[in-house]
């Protein structure tokens, strides 16, 4: 398919702007000499270009999207409609506070809801995404220790199954990452944790349920041990969807958590963002919270020992509107989300486990992991091949090659908004692919065959980086 630049014809274009109704005047400063190449294209042609691109994309609305750890559930239309209301979308972030009381009320209400769901005391909406929320939470931990003069604590403990963002966030917060092992059940190895706790421990980052989809049965002991060592407990809320309304992170010993509004609270991911990663914290961390808060309707205040700001204004406000709308709809029955997310995952796991090796064969939470390694060793059909084969069934593949502790991993998260029929169709597809792995392995290795492009050469892309269109 052509790039939009290849459809551009000099002199074509669209008339958007009016003639200048005041004398034309430019600053007496050095002006641009080399013009920017931008498309010159009619609205019709442009519309068709993007429609063609849309046809080459796959969203939740196109089909099943069991992308593990990403919670690709249905994005309700009402959420979008509410976020588009001019009373939100047309607000300048620096309007006088008394002209944006509805916005502040919404933020305050959403904060209350999220505090109730997490058990925490306060929420900052500054972070624009999950990883940004992790960074924020770790800075809160750092500010807390620093404020107490406890400056020797420079280590963050992270399990080996963690998302890559955890160690990367720890580095950005100036911490050294200490990796602890998972045990044979796929959860935290308590002895290894004990061995690494000490006077240098600033905190522990834990995803729960963890990245293999398991609820850590020792969770209360884990948080107790970390606290006894003087560290704080950070809850990576990427998988909160599995326990929402059933377990509250604060109740099980966590001090700070980020949530992904674009996962658990059903705001759409937009092909990579915008997300929103609000960070909730216990009372004793409130003095360090970032951002400006309007409590009295007129003035903005900053917490006394605030770590500052993570984004220019108040975070991704319109994403908050969507999450708020979603929570108003669901209300106190949020636990039904977790129930059905967990049910759907277990249903699929149960219906596949006779043929596909399940990494940790027990009741899973909202997702489960297939470790294809034994099959790969026999057949040379890899997790990547299975993922690509699913494309020909119109199914978005699971997350692959993550978590790192499972070889040839396929991580499947159906979510609660899928019907039993959809799950059954996917199960049939997985079972058919399994047959093909043994009967016609090359058909799996050559997949996909029905997509706009076939397998792409990642090595070439990385060895000869070509990151833009060349006009010359």
């Amino acid at each position, binding site marked *: 398919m052509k790039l939009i630049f290849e459809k551009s014809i000099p002199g074509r274009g669209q008339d958007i702007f009016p003639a200048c109704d005041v004398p034309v005047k430019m600053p007496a400063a050095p002006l641009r000499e080399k013009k920017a190449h931008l498309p010159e294209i009619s609205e019709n042609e442009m519309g068709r270009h993007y429609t063609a691109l849309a046809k080459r994309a796959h969203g939740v609305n196109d089909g099943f999207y069991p992308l593990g750890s990403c919670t690709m559930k249905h994005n309700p239309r009402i959420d979008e409609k509410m976020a588009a209301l001019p009373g939100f979308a047309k607000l300048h972030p620096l309007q006088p506070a008394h002209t944006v009381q509805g916005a502040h009320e919404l933020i305050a209400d959403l904060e209350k809801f999220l505090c109730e769901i997490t058990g925490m005391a306060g929420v900052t909406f500054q972070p624009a995404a999950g990883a940004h929320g992790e960074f924020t939470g770790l800075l809160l931990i750092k500010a807390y220790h620093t404020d107490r003069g406890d400056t020797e604590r420079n280590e963050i403990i992270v399990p080996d199954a963690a998302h890559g963002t955890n160690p990367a966030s720890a580095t950005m917060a100036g911490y050294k990452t200490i990796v602890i092992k998972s045990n044979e059940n796929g959860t935290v190895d308590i002895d290894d944790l004990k061995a690494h706790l000490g006077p240098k421990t600033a905190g522990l980052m834990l995803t729960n349920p963890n990245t293999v989809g398991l609820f850590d049965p020792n969770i209360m002991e884990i948080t107790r041990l970390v606290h006894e060592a003087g560290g704080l407990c950070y809850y990576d809320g990427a998988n909160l969807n599995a326990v929402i309304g059933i377990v509250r992170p604060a109740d099980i010993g966590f001090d700070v958590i980020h949530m992904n509004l674009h996962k658990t609270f059903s705001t759409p991911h937009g092909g990579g963002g915008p997300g929103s990663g609000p960070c909730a914290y216990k009372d004793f961390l409130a003095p360090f919270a970032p951002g400006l808060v309007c409590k009295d309707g007129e003035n903005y205040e900053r917490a006394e020992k605030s770590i500052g700001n993570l984004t220019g204004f108040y975070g991704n406000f319109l994403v908050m509107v969507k999450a708020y709308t979603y929570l108003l709809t669901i209300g106190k029955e949020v636990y039904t989300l977790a129930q059905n997310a967990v049910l759907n995952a277990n249903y699929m796991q149960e219906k596949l486990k006779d043929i596909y090796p399940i990494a940790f064969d027990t009741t899973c939470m909202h997702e489960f992991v297939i470790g294809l390694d034994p099959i790969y060793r026999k057949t040379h059909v890899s997790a990547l091949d299975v993922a690509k084969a699913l494309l020909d069934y119109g199914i978005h593949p699971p997350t692959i*090659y993550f978590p790192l502790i499972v070889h040839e991993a396929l991580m499947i998260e159906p979510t609660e908004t899928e019907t039993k029929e959809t799950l059954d169709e996917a199960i049939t597809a997985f079972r058919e692919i399994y047959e093909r792995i043994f009967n016609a392995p090359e058909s799996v290795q050559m997949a996909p065959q029905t997509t706009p492009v076939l397998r792409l050469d*990642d*090595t070439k*892309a*990385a*060895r000869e980086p070509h990151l833009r269109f060349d006009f010359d």
Partner: protein
Amino acid sequence: MIDPKELKYTKDDEWVRFEGDEAYVGITDYAQSELGDLVFVNLPEVDDEVVAGEPFGDVESVKAVADVFSPVSGVVLEVNEELLDDASLINSDPYGAWFIKVGSISACEDFMTADEYDEYRG
């Protein structure tokens, strides 16, 4: 590929070739084939110190990155700039594609001979 007899090998899959007081360091054929198509290599700068058993750089494939450990302690005299432009040389000629040349060598790791290494990675 046959591992050259004149080189020394480490358990982390590096090779080292001594020339007088200096040593050339690279990664073995086994290492490159495990890593797959390499797309980039991060190397230290000349005059940097390297320590035996500690990473001095890394190699990137499309989906992974692996540390490269120094078999010797010393000072980097030269880095192989060619690899910065074309990491595929490591795949095509692992024993020609040296990463760094080290001088002022003060310590070495325990080395294996080619036969021992073949046995180790058999």
